[in-house]
């Protein structure tokens, strides 16, 4: 471990590589986490199938790429298909559990996650898949730092998509209605908003965002039917750290999570790379707990 830290000091350019890789993948974590925050904040549904939605999006992009459609063009298609899928899931499952207690919705989405994993496995097999972009790879500093163009493009796409979603929430009528429902569903209903439709739309929008994140993941990482859980956990970590409805927080937390993963992978070894995600969750929860206690005391 100390050798690895020493290595970072000796060759500071390695930090650039690690930070860049963290930034690229962190932007996708942030995107998926934003979708989770949306559903959580508006509907109070904690979607445990979030990561599996991401993987589904990835498989869509990958499948299209095997048919000769470039994964970048596969991305919007994945979004549209996942939007439709999200709507179906809402009508079939989520609508029935939305006003039940928290455990019902957790169990329902957990079950959904298992079903998605197994169906993907049946359909595509357990192999790892990648959607190849065939873009160039740039080297800097004598090859010590490399950046694949696709990673850079995926960062731009993630940022663009996030901006679009934020703009949509701010300026469109639907976005306003979603925010109104999030603030007070009953009041929104009284004002004539069809909250059921809002919920359906929100859930589908989240699925579409996941579809996009998944398409990006399939281009810069790898996908496999059972990799969803890792993405679910990451989304939860980011949302818990940032708090609901805190968009800049989600972005910062997502990017830092990407960086933290890569740094801990470098310093502690790859076996602790994903461990760091869970460790962060524990730390974040502990810190929140302390903060809230202080808050409550102040109220007293």
């Amino acid at each position, binding site marked *: 471990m100390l050798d*690895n830290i020493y*290595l970072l000091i000796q*060759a500071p350019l*390695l930090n650039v*590589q*690690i930070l860049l*890789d963290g930034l690229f*993948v962190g932007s996708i974590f942030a995107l998926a986490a934003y979708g989770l925050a949306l559903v959580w904040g508006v509907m109070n549904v904690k979607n445990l199938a979030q990561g599996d939605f991401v993987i589904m999006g990835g498989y869509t992009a990958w499948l299209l790429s095997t048919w000769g459609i470039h994964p970048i063009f596969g991305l919007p298609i994945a979004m549209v298909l996942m939007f439709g899928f999200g709507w179906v899931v809402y009508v079939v499952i989520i609508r029935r559990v939305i006003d039940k207690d928290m455990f019902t919705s957790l169990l329902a989405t957990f079950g959904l996650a298992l079903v998605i994993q*197994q169906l993907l*496995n*049946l359909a595509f*097999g*357990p*192999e*790892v*898949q*990648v959607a*190849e972009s065939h873009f160039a*790879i740039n*080297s800097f500093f004598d*090859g*010590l730092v*490399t950046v*694949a163009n696709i*990673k850079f493009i995926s960062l731009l796409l993630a940022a663009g998509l996030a901006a679009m979603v934020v703009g949509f929430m701010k300026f469109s009528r639907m976005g306003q209605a979603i925010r109104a429902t999030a603030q007070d569903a009953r009041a929104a209903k009284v004002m004539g908003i069809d909250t059921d439709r809002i919920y359906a739309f929100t859930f589908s929008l989240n699925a579409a965002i996941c579809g996009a994140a998944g398409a990006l*993941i399939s281009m810069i*990482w*790898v*996908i*496999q039917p*059972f*990799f969803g*859980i*890792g993405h679910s956990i990451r989304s939860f970590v980011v949302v818990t750290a940032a708090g609901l409805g805190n968009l800049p927080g989600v972005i910062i937390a997502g990017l830092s999570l990407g960086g933290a*993963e*890569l*740094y*801990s*992978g*470098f310093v502690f*070894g*790859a*076996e602790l*790379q*994903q*461990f760091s995600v869970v460790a962060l969750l524990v730390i974040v929860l502990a810190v929140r707990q302390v903060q809230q206690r202080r808050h409550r005391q102040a109220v007293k």
Partner: protein
Amino acid sequence: MTVSTMFLRGLTFGVAAAGLIAVAPAQAKVEGNTIVLGSAISFTGKYSTNGIHAKNGYNLGVKRINEMGGVKVGGKAYKLKIIYYDDESTPLRTAQLAERLIKQDGVKYFLGPYSSATTKALAPITEKYKIPMVEAEGASRSLFNKGYKYIFAVLSTSEQYLASSIALAAEIAKKNGKDPSSVKVAMAFENDPFSLDVRAGVLDDMKKFGMKAVIDDKLPRDLSDMAATLTKVKALRPDLLVISGHSKGAATAARQIAEMKIKVPMIAMTHCEAAKIVQKFGASTNDYLCPTQWAETLSYKGAAFGTAGEYDKLFKKTFKGYKNVPYQSAQATAAVLVWKDAFERANSFDTEKVRVALTKTNMKTFYGNIKFSKGGNNIAKPMVLRQIQNGEFNVVAPSEWASHKVNWPRK
């Protein structure tokens, strides 16, 4: 009586009846002129692809033996048949299904499941019931140092998978006038029984040559990113990079080695073929070294199938959709051949006699020579190392079987 109580009664009766059928007298292990083998193997779940490869291998072995007149025991010819159950890639299920095969189906002769994990779950059960098992897909060496007496494996154990790459690196260092102990090795192994065995074998051989490990990372089970490990590789410039993490490890590594332009003179990894890295990543995978249990280009030869090449052709003709015959299929077929050989030499269906015959197995097959150690693993067949050269897999080590020269350093 309400409908629901009627339903409940009907259900109870039905369950009871099913239970009675289940405990009905077990079928014999040899039915008429058919010898019944049993296997709980993965058709669904994470091992499904290779499970099905193995099943195809078993089926081809059975088909060929039956076509050639079957198994001759006591002057009579018997046909072979296999009962399969799907273990859903979970070891617990493999164990349950093994009990079912033994107790309900009366199977007395086993073919192995796919993977070390499921085989590990199964071995204690075949031991308990004294049922011999010839397995072809569990390579972990922990299967063979427990003193099990009823397990026989046709494949090379996992610690041999990448050990030959160390020997090759030492050979090349010597040729270049360097001391083998100066070779720096970077290791990335998944944290699972199989890969850790591979790692143990590599470490043993490194010790032999006095080589140093500059990186020793253990990859998590659901690994989708190796960038941190590879950044270290970039900084430390090892002479040899060895990776083992099943198909997902190979695919992730191949993708990121290309993406990060990692330049190491020698890269060796397991599961190159299973991960289809050549199809996926093309020329960037050139000069990777990949161990294999078997290759169709090897000059092995046996009675039932002829040469390895002939087996390859027959397999592709029998099962559509295979561009390459996976070694998982070849070794499965070899396991069936071992059963035939053992039955004929034992000249009996007594499990104990057949087991003794199995311990004395010494045969030449298209899959290589087969001879079991006391622990039950095959000690007569080496692991071969192939190099990806312009998209082709060519055998480069050990020199006895090599068809091509090794490209070093890789570009």
